[in-house]
C-alpha cells in the first residue's frame, strides 16, 4: 500500500529511528511501512495518524481509490 510516511517524517527532519521510537516499534518496521513492503495494522495506522495529526486517508493511499483513478 502506498503511503506518505517518508514525506511526513522528512518534513519533521526525523530519522527512521526517531519515528520508530515515537511509535514504539523497530526501525525495520518503519522502513518496511515506508517502502510499502508491510501494511500496518489498523491500531498502528491510527497511532501513525495521531502522531502526524492527519486523517489516515491522508497518509495511506487506498488501493481501490488508486485503481479507480487509473480507470
Amino acid at each position, binding site marked *: 500500500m502506498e503511503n506518505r510516511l517518508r514525506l511526513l517524517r522528512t518534513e519533521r527532519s526525523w530519522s527512521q529511528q526517531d519515528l520508530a521510537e515515537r511509535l514504539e*516499534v*523497530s526501525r*525495520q518496521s518503519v522502513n518496511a511501512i515506508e517502502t510499502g*513492503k*508491510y501494511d500496518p495494522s489498523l491500531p*498502528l495506522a491510527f497511532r501513525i495518524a495521531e502522531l502526524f495529526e492527519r486523517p489516515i486517508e491522508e497518509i495511506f493511499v487506498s488501493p481501490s481509490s488508486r485503481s479507480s483513478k487509473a480507470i
Partner: protein
Amino acid sequence: MLRTPAWKRYNWRVVWLSLLYAAFLLAAVYGFKHHLLSGGVAYLVAALPAFPIIGIFFAMGRYLVEERDEYVRMLMVRQTLWASGFALSVATIWGFLESFEVVGHVDAYYVAVIWFAGLGVGSLINKFTVGDGGC
C-alpha cells in the same frame, strides 16, 4: 538481527532450556549405560531430554504472544511456518524413502533438529522476499 525485549526474553529461555536439555540427556545416557533404570522410571528418564525441546517450542509460542512489534512478529510467524513446512516435508520424504528401504532408519526426534534448521531457511526466505531476515 532485531533485538526487541520479547526476543531477549526468548533467547534467555532458550539458553536455560538448552542447558536443561544437556543435563537431562547426560543423566539419561548415564542411567541407561550403567543399567540403573527399569520399568516406568526407564520410560520417564528416556523421555526426559524431550521436555526441554518441547519447552523451546513453547518459548517460541510465548515469544509470538509477547512480541509487541507487529512487523517483527509477522517475520517470525513466516519463519516458523517455513520451518514447519520444511520439517514436515523432509520427514514425509524420508518416511517414504525409509518405507521402500532406499535409506536407513533415522530417529524421529531429528524432526525437531530439521525444524530448527528450517528457521534458518525461513530467515533466508524472509531476507529474499521481504528484505528483512528478522530474528
